[in-house]
């Protein structure tokens, strides 16, 4: 049986992990390499590195860091942030990334997903969508959730998948940071619309939220979170044991 995946997401700026990571017994909590090794040992099934750097120097630093992480950690690595061209795909894939997630870049340039999928295969292309409820519908937001694109989310995601995206990360702006659980309604709408893996993001606050997610929506493939893992509020081993006790298949 394929297992449900648990994915910590790390924000990297100028070569360091940001968003206050707070681990007991881990000295250098802002070193992406140390954190990646830590999560890999804790049972993370995959890691997402999000490059929030704006400058060219920062980008070069990021790829350098990525290369270091990929030489030490042998689980799938996804990279997002600042991916606007097929050359950006090449830049991070050559440093050991396995998948590349696109967000605003795919909104600005509709040719990006088909071009990347043709060159690297769909398994490599992840569409990451920030979605928020507006006037009773689901709307895609760009620029880190600041700008309403006016695009209807479910049809936009379906179009991205038709164009070659092999996986969807659905981040609900409505539940993000609230820690009241994943956005089951929004996830359900997207799962019904696409046949590729869907990764739930935004809203996880405790272990029970993951149990509820996979019980209510068996078609969701993975749960992604950041701060609850970084701050040690949820330990990935504990989480997986509880999932297993609830008859959800996980890798232990």
């Amino acid at each position, binding site marked *: 049986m*394929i*297992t449900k995946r648990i994915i910590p997401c790390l924000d990297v700026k100028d070569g360091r992990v940001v968003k206050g990571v707070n681990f007991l017994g881990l000295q250098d909590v802002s070193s992406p390499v140390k954190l990646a090794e830590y999560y890999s040992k804790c049972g993370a099934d995959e890691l997402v590195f999000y490059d929030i750097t704006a400058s060219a120097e920062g980008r070069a630093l990021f790829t350098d860091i990525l290369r270091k992480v*990929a030489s030490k950690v*042998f689980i*799938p690595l996804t990279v997002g942030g600042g991916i606007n061209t097929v050359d950006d795909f090449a830049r991070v894939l*050559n440093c050991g990334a396995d998948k590349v997630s696109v967000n605003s870049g795919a909104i600005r340039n509709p040719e990006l997903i088909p071009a990347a999928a043709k060159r690297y295969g769909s*398994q490599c292309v992840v569409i990451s969508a920030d979605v928020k409820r507006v006037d009773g519908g689901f709307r895609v937001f760009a620029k880190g959730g600041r700008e309403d694109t006016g695009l209807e989310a479910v049809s936009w995601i379906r179009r991205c998948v038709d164009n070659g995206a092999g996986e969807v990360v659905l981040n609900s702006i409505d539940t993000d940071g609230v820690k009241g659980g994943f956005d089951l309604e929004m996830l359900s709408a997207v799962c019904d619309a696409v046949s590729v*893996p869907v990764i739930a993001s935004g809203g996880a606050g405790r272990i029970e939220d993951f149990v509820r997610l996979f019980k209510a929506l068996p078609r969701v493939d993975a749960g992604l979170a950041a701060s609850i893992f970084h701050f040690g509020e949820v330990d990935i081993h504990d989480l997986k044991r509880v999932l297993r006790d609830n008859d959800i298949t996980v*890798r232990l």
Partner: protein
Amino acid sequence: MIAIIDYGVGNLFSLSHSLTHIGAEVVVTGDDAAIRRADHVILPGVGAFGDAAAKLRATGLDGAVKAIAARGTPIMGICLGMQLLLQKSYEFGEHEGLGLIPGEVQPIAEVIPPDYKIPHIGWNALEIARPHPIFRDIRPGDCVYFVHSFYGAGCGTALLATAEYGAHLTAAVGRGNVVGCQFHPEKSGDVGLKILKAFCEWEGTT
């Protein structure tokens, strides 16, 4: 010395680093002589079978692989590299493989229930069909990482392991000194590293 065959297909970064990580001496090469000289050889690959088979032939390295296979050098095919070891593929047409292991490459869509997603992507447990030296450190329930839409069918007694995904999909094959893994050991954490290490220490006999 372990040679990873570089024939212009896929990204060999993780594979070469995972081998370095377990202490192996690695060379990533498309050089015929270097491949023939190596103690162990890995045939990687991602993408479409037809393209990869054509590239392997165009570089002439198919001959090197067949020669070292006949000589007894341990060879491991990974993902598409495993599929290339088989006789034939039906991915976008009909293509000939290296024929080192019995079997044909078929779409998983033909054997899995319609509500299962394609590709088969993620961590799945290995079910060992026949013990093999590369699995010497693997325990029941150990998971490895898969990404594929086609699988090896009809491998007969060469079938070493399967993974359950609505059907028992071929996860590993082997005959004599040649083995193949459908999954990515270089992306399968400690379990994958154990398989790579066992391969590096294997002398090609079963």
